[in-house]
């Protein structure tokens, strides 16, 4: 199929982004990531994007594809393209580093202090809970997009798991930038590529807090 790939481009020093158009032949079954990678290798080597595993496990290739947050590696061109058009943009809610690559430190920096999980066993705990830390939930969340202090869906969902196991959450999780800042838009859960359901977990954590079944440290 013929595909018109439109990529939002922005580099350090540019005053505004621009949209580059690439007319390419694509297999409907191939992934959007493969298509972007092919365009990068054959047409424009300056196109910046993140990727690693190519099978939806690492969470590196989260981006907005035709207005919807997705992992590009598990999104087929045929299912995402609309009338042959494929618009790819960087995730919202994060600073853009270059083109489709964003700085996710806003999310990663919250893990140690806010969920207290990154102790020696933390990495295995996070993976046990299935979150691939792709940042899609931040991009889809209207609060994370507009309230910089908000801890964010994935961090709060991890805090819910800690609350269940330990019966205690850090003060910041129960504070104004924590569970109470969520407004139940549930786009985090709708867009999460692994079904981690952050929205539901935030609401359940609220209920635990309201019922006094979880302590605040």
């Amino acid at each position, binding site marked *: 199929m013929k595909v018109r790939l439109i990529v939002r481009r922005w580099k350090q020093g540019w005053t505004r982004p621009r949209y580059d158009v690439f007319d390419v032949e694509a297999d409907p079954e191939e992934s959007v990531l493969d298509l972007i990678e092919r365009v990068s290798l054959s047409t424009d080597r300056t196109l910046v994007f993140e990727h690693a595993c190519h099978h939806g496990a690492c969470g590196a290739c989260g981006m907005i594809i035709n207005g919807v947050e997705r992992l590009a590696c598990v999104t087929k061109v045929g299912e995402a393209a609309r009338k042959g058009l494929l618009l790819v943009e960087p995730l919202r809610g994060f600073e853009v580093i270059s083109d489709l690559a964003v700085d996710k430190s806003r999310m990663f920096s919250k893990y140690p202090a806010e969920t207290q999980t990154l102790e020696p066993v933390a990495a295995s705990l996070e993976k046990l809970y299935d979150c691939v830390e792709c940042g899609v939930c931040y991009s889809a969340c209207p609060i994370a997009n507009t309230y910089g202090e908000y801890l964010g869906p994935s961090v709060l969902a991890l805090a819910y798991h800690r609350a269940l196991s330990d019966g205690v959450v850090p003060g910041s999780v129960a504070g104004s930038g924590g569970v109470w800042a969520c407004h139940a*838009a549930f786009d985090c859960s709708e867009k999460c590529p692994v079904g981690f359901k952050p929205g539901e977990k935030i609401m359940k954590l609220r209920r635990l807090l309201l019922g006094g079944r979880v302590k605040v440290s």
Partner: protein
Amino acid sequence: MGLGKAVRSWFQVKGRSAEHISFGLRRLAGIVLALYLVIHMVDISTLLLGREYYQALLNLFSSPVGLVFDIILWILLVAHGSLGLYSAIVEAGFLVDRRKELLVAAWAVVALFSLVGAVVIIHVMG
């Protein structure tokens, strides 16, 4: 983060869930109702200027344009209330896994009360 970015994020429709769109509409309805409250206070204050000024405003509100305005306000009020009740239930952690059904019920309430309200406004004030 800027107001423009916040507004765009809240009111984005494309690719967003029914819950997100309902969240945006609830906020929009709340903003409009808050603005109406201010307008209403100004409207009431015209009594201080004399009966004829207040009567002129009453005539404006009972005109066909005024009735349309009233119906829109009623729909926004019902939407804000019904979606707010949905939000209060879900945001307190209740019926989280049944929220889709609850949201459909909330929108059904909006449709029903909007229709009844519109009929009453047209018959009583029209």
